[in-house]
């Protein structure tokens, strides 16, 4: 036994596995690995002042008009899930990327990459859902493309979209605009999309099934802009969840942030599922929620405007922007202590015990 005790002191750990020669799934998680890919590959290759703002959409001035332009790809599995499908999700995701720039969404492209063997009935369902979602959001699909790949080369169906919208002159919403003293608003309860997908994928049955929150947020944004209140930044916390979005804003604006755990709405069934799976809801994806960074004196007015809208009924003020600790997001826990809300390195992993 004494040999083992002596051996304790000599233990050491292996060299780090910092670099990788191949793409890992974690590179698509929306966390630090994704940011790394952006910094090392895409930004050096395509760098320009518009791209380097790293917002969900580019704002382009063309003949005096300000256009918002965005693109997104959808690879969700399963293709149809509780609360939506890949078609409606593609419309909502693209519309939301435009809306977060304060744009009125106008036109979409739709490119479908289909796997050999996909049932046409599934395609019909998705296309119909795409059409209905676009029509409800009052956007037109004005161009598209179809490709078919061999069986095994994609998971049923992938969709790529682009979107164009128009932004009022003078409006500037960007992740680098947060200032100390600003308040952080959240439009509703979090983590529903991620849990709905996970539950379906893993065949987990809950007493009350969790529905994806997938929704187009542009009318909520319009209602917020109508108040004339000073909004600095809007973001929809999709992949990587609320925590990744807030960390990005804190880093881009070089500010700190403090959150109130108690103020962040989470539905009971979602909390239960997260507890069971060992997941932190702050890192779970949303597809119908937005975060707004707003001037302190505008916060209450905006909150009321959000709560009057069906997609913002559960809106809350969840935090404050600080000058201290730039880039760090800290949360006051329900116990009154504090803890860091970090950006995850890769995917959130299920816990072992």
């Amino acid at each position: 036994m004494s040999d083992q005790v002596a051996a304790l002191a000599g233990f050491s750990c292996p060299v780090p596995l910092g670099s990788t020669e191949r793409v890992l799934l974690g590179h698509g998680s929306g966390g630090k690995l994704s940011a790394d890919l952006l910094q090392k590959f895409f930004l050096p290759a395509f760098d320009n002042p518009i791209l380097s703002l790293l917002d969900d959409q580019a704002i382009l001035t063309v003949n005096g008009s300000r256009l918002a332009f965005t693109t997104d790809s959808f690879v969700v599995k399963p293709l149809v899930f509780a609360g939506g499908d890949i078609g409606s999700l593609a419309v909502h995701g693209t519309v939301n990327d435009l809306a977060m720039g304060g744009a009125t969404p106008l036109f979409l492209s739709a490119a479908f990459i289909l796997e050999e063997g996909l049932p046409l009935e599934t395609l019909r369902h998705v296309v119909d859902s795409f059409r209905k979602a676009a029509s409800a959001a009052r956007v037109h699909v004005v161009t598209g493309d179809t490709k078919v790949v061999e069986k095994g080369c994609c998971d049923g169906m992938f969709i790529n979209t682009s979107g164009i919208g128009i932004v009022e002159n003078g409006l500037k919403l960007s992740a680098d605009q947060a200032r100390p003293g600003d308040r952080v608003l959240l439009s509703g309860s979090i983590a529903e999309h991620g849990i709905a997908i996970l539950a379906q994928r893993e065949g987990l049955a809950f007493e009350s099934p969790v529905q994806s929150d997938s929704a187009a947020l542009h009318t909520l944004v319009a209602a917020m802009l109508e108040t004339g209140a000073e909004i600095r930044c809007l973001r929809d916390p999709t992949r990587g969840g609320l925590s990744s979005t807030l960390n990005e804003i804190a880093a881009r604006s070089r500010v700190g942030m403090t959150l109130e755990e108690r103020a962040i709405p989470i539905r009971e069934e979602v909390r239960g599922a997260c507890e069971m799976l060992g997941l932190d809801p702050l890192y779970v994806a949303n597809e119908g929620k937005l975060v707004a960074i707003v001037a302190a004196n505008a916060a209450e007015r905006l909150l009321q405007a959000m709560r009057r809208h069906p997609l913002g009924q559960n809106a809350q003020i969840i935090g404050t922007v600080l000058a201290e600790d730039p880039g760090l997001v800290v949360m006051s826990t329900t116990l009154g202590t504090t803890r860091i809300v970090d950006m995850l390195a890769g995917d959130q992993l299920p816990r072992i015990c």
Partner: protein
Amino acid sequence: MKYIDEYRDERIAHGLAAEIRQLVTRPCVLMEICGGQTHTIMRYGLDEFLPKEVELVHGPGCPVCVTPLETIDKAIELAACPDVTLVSYGDMLRVPGSSSDLFRAKANGSDVRVVYSPLEALKIARSNPNRKIVFLAIGFETTAPANAMTVWQAHREGLTNFFMLASHVLVPPAIRLLLRSPDNRVQGFIAPGHVCTVMGCQQYEELVSEFHVPIVVGGFEPVDLLEAILMLVRQLEQGQARLENQYVRSVTRLGNVPAQEMLEKVFEIADQKWRGIGTIPFSGLRLRGEFAAHDAEKIFGMAEIHTEEPAECISAQVLKGLKKPTDCPAFAARCTPENPLGAPMVSAEGACAAYYRYRRHKVLV
């Protein structure tokens, strides 16, 4: 949420903390064994509640952290076989072996899959009769019965393509090792509530009397842990050493007997290597001879792997409670969750990762 909210209640937590402050008159070093408990302490900032006299150090109870490097290397080697599907819990995929990890193995073309329950590994075996399914099974007494059940079920069904690469560890021998160490500082233990749910708390009576050390079986919520700390402080202040059970809503003296029987049926106690600690006698579980057909190490004729670990991180002292993660010069600098030097930085329940993820705003100022 019932059974959760009352154990995260601010008022009750503050009340317990006040009682601890009132009671404590001298410094004491307490260790929580389980990584899940470490996680709760960090996530809820329980250190902010405690008086300076109470020092918490963090034990070796993160199963991912103590899985030997050789086991990870073997798993990567097996996963590289074209007819093998390697199945494990998500946490294990990110743990670095000597030169790679299972996520990278996956990116390099190995068939590696994540499951939530070991029984899912059996499903994969049933529906892929032409592939060899290797389940990388790790964990303490908590996860071991379910893993045992998988092998037992595979055996019963005659599934010839299901194999287990196992690294199971037992808590009491590790506590015994810590207590026998000449540089031990720990004066009281919070025993792991979930391990005790399975094994019963009677297992710890022997340790209490042998070493005259107070042990309190604790739960995993903030109020559980504060209450367990209070119970330990009370014993230490009164000069007592007893086994107490704070986690009464889950733990009984005898534990989950059918689970223990399943363990007994499938596994036998064996010496086991712990990463960061070395081989501890009788501290692990290996498959019994009658299940040899499912033992990956035997079936795949795996050669002993010898791993070299260059001296960089201090996880040995961290796992032993001699040092805090923040005592390490590499902490949050050369060692982060993206680039972990040692396993305690990899798993969310590892002490280093928990400090990094939740507390570095307090320790780096």
